[in-house]
């Protein structure tokens, strides 16, 4: 009996080892591919959406931030924004002062006396819909994903609320929705653009400072914007291939 038991135990262990080995191989195969996430360019044929922001046009009215909240039902508390506006003031001594009271929704007032100001301007911020987005990379369940049109979206019914994506976003564009209790962010008004409309923030901008368009369409407004301006993206060293392109972006802006 002892011999049989040793044998059956041996058989059990070898089966278990084979099963574990099989799982390990299949997992590691995927993982090795997964390591290359932030190096591979995506191959796209259909529309590939992005946004241009012309800082020389922005007047800091905050309409975009306000309309976004209404359009997308974002909490009105001042800690949750899918898009917001920052006021940068560079002083004569080179120091930088930045404010974004209520995301710019209530407008701005300049606290620095005129004679001390070297330069002042506004910077609207939003999700950069990165091609190699760190938030998509780190989501442990795949609840945040790229749409075929290059829009980074969150599946509300799937997100476990681990907040890893919030940590991973270099631009501070994500938050945990206080009502839905899942990660939330700009969708580029996916519900509108799929119907051929403009994102709400683009639609209401009185100066046309936000330019929405298809990067794969040579005739789109966005492609023309990119051709005509020396654009720059935020934090280019992050290598996220951001699809929000700024005209007039100064080095102080982060």
């Amino acid at each position, binding site marked *: *009996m*002892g011999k049989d*038991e*040793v044998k059956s*135990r041996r058989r059990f*262990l070898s089966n278990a080892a084979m099963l*574990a080995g099989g*799982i390990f191989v299949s*997992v590691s195969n*995927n*993982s090795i*591919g*997964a390591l290359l*996430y932030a190096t591979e360019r995506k191959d796209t044929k259909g529309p590939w959406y992005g946004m241009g922001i012309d800082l020389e046009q922005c007047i800091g009215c905050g309409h975009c931030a306000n309309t976004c909240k209404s359009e997308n039902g974002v909490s009105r508390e*001042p*800690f*949750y*924004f899918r898009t*917001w506006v*920052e006021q940068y003031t560079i002083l004569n001594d080179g120091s*930088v*002062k*930045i*404010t*974004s009271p*209520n*995301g710019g929704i209530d407008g701005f007032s300049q606290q620095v006396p005129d004679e001390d100001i070297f330069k002042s301007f506004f910077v609207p*911020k939003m999700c950069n819909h990165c091609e190699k987005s*760190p938030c*998509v*990379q*780190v*989501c*442990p*369940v*795949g*609840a945040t994903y790229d749409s075929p049109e290059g829009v980074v979206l969150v599946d509300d019914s*799937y*997100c*476990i*609320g*681990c*907040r*890893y994506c*919030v*940590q*991973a*976003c*270099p*631009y*501070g*564009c*994500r*938050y*945990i929705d206080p009502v839905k*209790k*899942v990660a939330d962010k700009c969708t580029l008004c996916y519900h509108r653009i799929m119907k051929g409309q403009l994102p709400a923030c683009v639609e209401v901008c009185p100066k046309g400072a936000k330019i929405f368009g298809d990067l794969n369409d040579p005739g789109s407004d966005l492609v023309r914007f990119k051709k005509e301006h020396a654009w720059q993206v935020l934090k280019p060293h*992050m290598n996220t291939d951001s699809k929000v392109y700024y005209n007039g972006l100064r080095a102080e802006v*982060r």
Partner: protein
Amino acid sequence: MLSKVDGFIYPNEIELNWSVLIVLYPYITGLVAGAFILASLERVFKVKVLRPTYTIALLTALGFLLVATMPLISHLAQPQRFYEIMITPHFTSAMAIFGFIYLWYLMVVLLLEIWLDYRRDLVLWSQEKTGVMKHVYKILTLGVTDLSPKALKWDDKLGYAITVIGIPSAFLLHGYVGFIFGSVKANPWWSTVLMPVIFIFSAMVSGIALVMVVFMVVNYIRKKMIDMACLDTIAKYLLIALILDFALEGLDQVHRIYEAEESFQILDLLVKGKLTYTLFLFQWGLGMLVPILVLAYFQMFKSKERLRRILYLITGVLVLVGIFFMRWNVVVGGQLFSKSFYGFTAFKLQLIGPEGSLMAVVWLIVPLLIVAFLFWLLPPWKRHAEPET
């Protein structure tokens, strides 16, 4: 809430996303990995003088491993969906594999090793005991009751093999936790290749200190004279681990200071401001330098046994507190500054609530209760003498 802000932060950054529960997560897994590595010193590296701590270390590791995921799961905004990470893991995520590594470590390494090590005792206890406990032990044998010398030899061989696998697994378990933080490129306080290595060595430090303290407390409660040779050896290994950990953390900081990248200014302000006490006083001062000096002194000079015992206990506790603050400084410290590098938010630990300090204390007491239960169920000091071979 806005009064918490110092300078400029992105408006979405005001709330700290990972609080004290996520501090506990690397703390607890570190204790597990470190305790296991101490046990493997006896088993694989044949440091026989550590024999009295072998099973104590394994059971302590198990007690803590059983609760390691609890702070994580209870921290989720959607805790009822936690299983999604196991059934639909997203392999580009550094977090997705944790469940598998955890299960591997729990089922294949710790449980199996403890079971193989205890199997003979379980069979004998199931024969000796009466009443309910007889059946409990019988169930724990899983029906494998063969005590022939050949079967026991197999237990020993398998146990050895599992410990050998267990060492890289323990490194993997905690190195991986380090990678979860170290791979976040958006956060300069976390993003360093040294993070997994620092996590492994700090895990060894905390795990060895934990077993040392548990070993002393157990002997005190049982009113037994402690095996000083064993205790001195643990202290020696604790000293080695502390020195290595200190060197690695020092290297990390020197590297940051010398390179002084874009984020340097804000991190400098962070370290000298919001983290002054938790970093300089608790993590490096009381948690590292003082223990290193005390333990090094005992290596160089002979001292009275009683003095050594008292200072070992104090040192062990200091190290445990110090490593807790090491995790704190990583997890909380990494969220106090804005990714715009233009300002800070503040963190105020609540007392009550699911994210409060009371809850954190619960998650530290529960594993100790489990360890106490395991000591009662599988008393390391009531085991049967090895049969003559």
